[in-house]
């Protein structure tokens, strides 16, 4: 299970904080500070994995740097570390498609949209969707609904089949 997804910038400012286990605010801030402390002292050219005991002995932390931002996922031993790296890639690609060339400011000013994107990818600590085009499609529908709150669904959903057959 994924325990937390955190985005912080290289100054240690939180940009997106999502815990899948409830944590009080103070604890959240402490975790963010600790994580930032670990990451900014890490050398370049090392692995993206950090042994992390924030949530118990078996939790691990994977991070990836994109421009000025650290994307951090904390998870337990039921997840595959390498797959989590791909998951982060999907998340960032989706952000990129939604904001066309995403940068830190997009995330700062649209943090609730970013939350919605994240909710389409991870639900309750489990992965919902790994296809960024599916996520973007769902988000388009949501944005349309935001603008036309009183109408119902715009187009009938086409049921996308198993592509690989």
């Amino acid at each position, binding site marked *: 299970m994924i325990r937390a997804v955190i985005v912080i910038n290289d100054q240690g400012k*939180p*940009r*997106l*904080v*999502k815990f*899948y286990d*409830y944590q009080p*605010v103070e604890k*959240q801030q402490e975790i963010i500070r600790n994580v930032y402390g670990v990451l900014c002292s890490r*050398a370049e*050219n*090392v*692995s*993206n*994995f*950090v*042994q992390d005991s924030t949530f118990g002995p078996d939790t691990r932390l994977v991070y990836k740097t994109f421009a000025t931002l650290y994307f951090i996922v904390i998870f337990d031993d*039921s997840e*595959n*570390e*390498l*797959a989590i*790296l*791909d*998951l982060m*890639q*999907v998340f960032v690609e989706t952000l990129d498609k939604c904001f066309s060339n995403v940068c830190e400011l997009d995330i*700062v*000013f649209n*943090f*609730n949209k970013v*939350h*919605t994107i994240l*909710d389409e990818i991870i*639900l*309750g600590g*489990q*992965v*919902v*969707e*790994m*296809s960024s*085009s*599916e996520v973007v499609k*769902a988000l388009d529908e*949501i944005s349309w*609904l*935001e603008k036309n*709150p*009183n109408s*119902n*669904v715009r187009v009938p*959903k086409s*049921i*996308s*089949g*198993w*592509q*690989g*057959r």
Partner: protein
Amino acid sequence: MNPFSSETRLRDMIRAIRACKTAAEERAVVRKECASIRAAVSDNDNDYRHRNLAKLMFIHMLGYPTHFGQMECLKLIAAPGFPEKRIGYLGLMLLLDERQEVLMLVTNSLKQDLNHTNQYIVGLALCALGNISSAEMARDLAPEVERLLQFRDPNVRKKAALCSIRIIKKVPDLAENFVNPVASLLKEKHHGVLLTAIQLCADLCTVSEEALEYFRKKCTEGLVKVLKDAVNSPYAPEYDISGIADPFLQIKLLRILRILGHGDADASDLMNDVLAQVATKTESNKNAGNAILYECVETIMSIEDSGGLRVLAINILGRFLSNRDNNIRYVALNMLMRAISVDGQAVQRHRATIVECVKDSDASIRKRALELVYLLVNETNVKPLTKELIDYLEVSDQDFKGDLTAKICSIVEKLSPEKIWYIDRMLKVLCEAGNYVKDEVWHGLIVVITNATNLHGYTVRSLYRAIQTSGDQEAVVRVAVWCIGEYGDLLVNNTGMLDLEEPITVTENDAVDVIEAAIKRHTSDLSTRAMCLIALLKLSSRFPSCSQRIKDIVNQSKGSLLLELQQRSIEFDSIIEKHQNLRSALVERMPVLDEATYSGRRAGSLPAVDSTSQGNPLQMPNGIPKTAAAPLLDLLDLSADEPAPQSSSGPNFLQDLLGGDILSTASQSGTTHPQKSGTDVLLDLLSTGSPPAQNGSSTADILSISQDNNKTSVSALNSLSSPMVTSTQNSSASAIMDLLDGFGPSPAVPKDNGPAYPSLVAFESNSLSLVFNFSKQPGSPQITEIEATFTNKSSDNYKDFIFQAAVPKFLQLHLEPASGNTLPASGNGSITQKLRVTNNQHGKKSIIMRIRISYKSNNKDMLEEGQISNIPRDL
């Protein structure tokens, strides 16, 4: 309406916060915003509610309290519009705690939204429920979620599946309701639904044994087929990640197969083929492919399997180890660590690559590789592996040296095939990283050196060379100093040359030079210097020609500010100066240290001894008596008139102990040993010599008692010693008291209030007689007071007279100080000493004791021993 709140948009607030230069400014802005939001909350402002909540979420992310906005979430969720609901649910997930009662209020809204006609609102509700559901909510809403698993839209189905995971985690009893719906979801074609259904299936299997059995029987084959299709599917752009078709689905499939196959041979059989396909067909040049391979390896390791696949799996890990990507190497090492218990032989084959990883540029990989190497070492490969590691030690990072030396030392200690190899490797490690070596490692080395009798010469010569090249490593210096002190003569004479050695010429002065350099080195700490002093004392006897020079060096420490050094140098100086006749016996070679005792001590009793070493920093916690204790120990041996003990078992040391106090009595007029050192010797001896079992708290107790009060220590010591020992510590304790406190022996006051008993000649020899007078307290038949009277039958005065007694375990013996220590000739006087014996088996066994009497007659040491067994039973 609050004007401020309506004016600032979310964007403006974020801008304002970003513009803050200091934390204080930021706090001020946030405080202002929070005030206006509170005002809006109390005004029940509808128009800007969702904007205010969005602001609160941002404020929450920055770490400020936002509890006052919780009810706003509920109001927004209850609103009809989509935008309000969306923000409301986001707020619910971020700001609320599942334990809060507020959450109960949302159950009804959730229920309505789960039945909403708009599938996106259903999606929002599922998402919120999946993130924050409490057990009560799970129970209330499970039927809705179960129904949604069959919803027409796949997006809702997949969210419902993940939401179900939360539900069964909160209420495992509900698991059985989900088994059938999941079985049908597993037949889905939609990727997202399949992915989520598999995750739900995995969680069902972990919470319910029946579910696991069910899926194992009904679904294994189907899942294997899905995986087969995924592996063999052509390019599918939608789910493609760097050229691999839907890696995440494959990973989840492998994971569920692992759960189904674990512990079940039939299910494992079904998946063998497809696992082999995944392992061979997946491309490993991209992260996604490696992720699949990695998962596949883990599955192969967990299922019931024939050896073939395992070899394949471990070979994949072997390939990973030479991958350029750090992450891949990292996970490979992790997995190999687990694989080693499954198939150690297969892992051994990749030893060379693993050792290369110890030299990785990434610290976390190095650390892992080192741990793995440590697990891989066995008797057959210990030599090459250790060589490799020690070679690397020379060039490794400073921060890595500590870990590396600890592991090397542990390997060498654990698996060394022969002593010379052990000594060689250890010296090498000490030379390379002596400053990183823990104390117990070089203590252990010294124990091994003393045991390798035929290698003493070789070792001391190697150390002499080592200290020339690596004199900056503290541990090298200490071990070298110790060995040169002990075996300096072998160094100079080239005794015991091995074939492989190159001869060296070392003069006596050269050897002393080394010690002098070490004691003068400004980085040497107290222990090193103390060890140097002892080595010098020993050399002064081994090299008579250097005696004067050594005396000068020792004298330089007389002015040391460190009490210990100052005291030792004064003592040693007087030994060198005044006690030539004593010296050679005094500084005899240390007895062989007992390896078993040492390792037992290391394992069991460090804490107890540690506590005692606070008083005297020179005491080594491991009890190797190489510092202040060492010469004293030697002294004891000498004056106890006995050969040096050949093993350091408890009884011998207790005897030494006795001897030690004899010495202190003897030196009453000569060198003064302050009470503290005497007591410390007791401690040292006890902690060194007694077997680990006795070494626990009882030692500590004894120590604390004996430091407070020598008298009370007697009974404690007695209980520690075994009955056959001539344990006469009691007299020794009193001797110390006499000596140090100037405490005159208290005159014996006979007590006549008990029944009278006839006196008894307890011991008689040609030169001496001993008479016991008994008395008893009326109320306590177990306790017998004995007054011992010693009479000299010879024509010479006895000096330094000491009486010692030992009793079996069922007795407790308490000795009072003797009335004096000089016994005039020809019965012209006597010494009396009171004993109190408590007989725990009064009436069944009579009092018996062994005695030992030592004294000086005509300046000759005399010793008489005997057993007293003629005491009547009623006493």
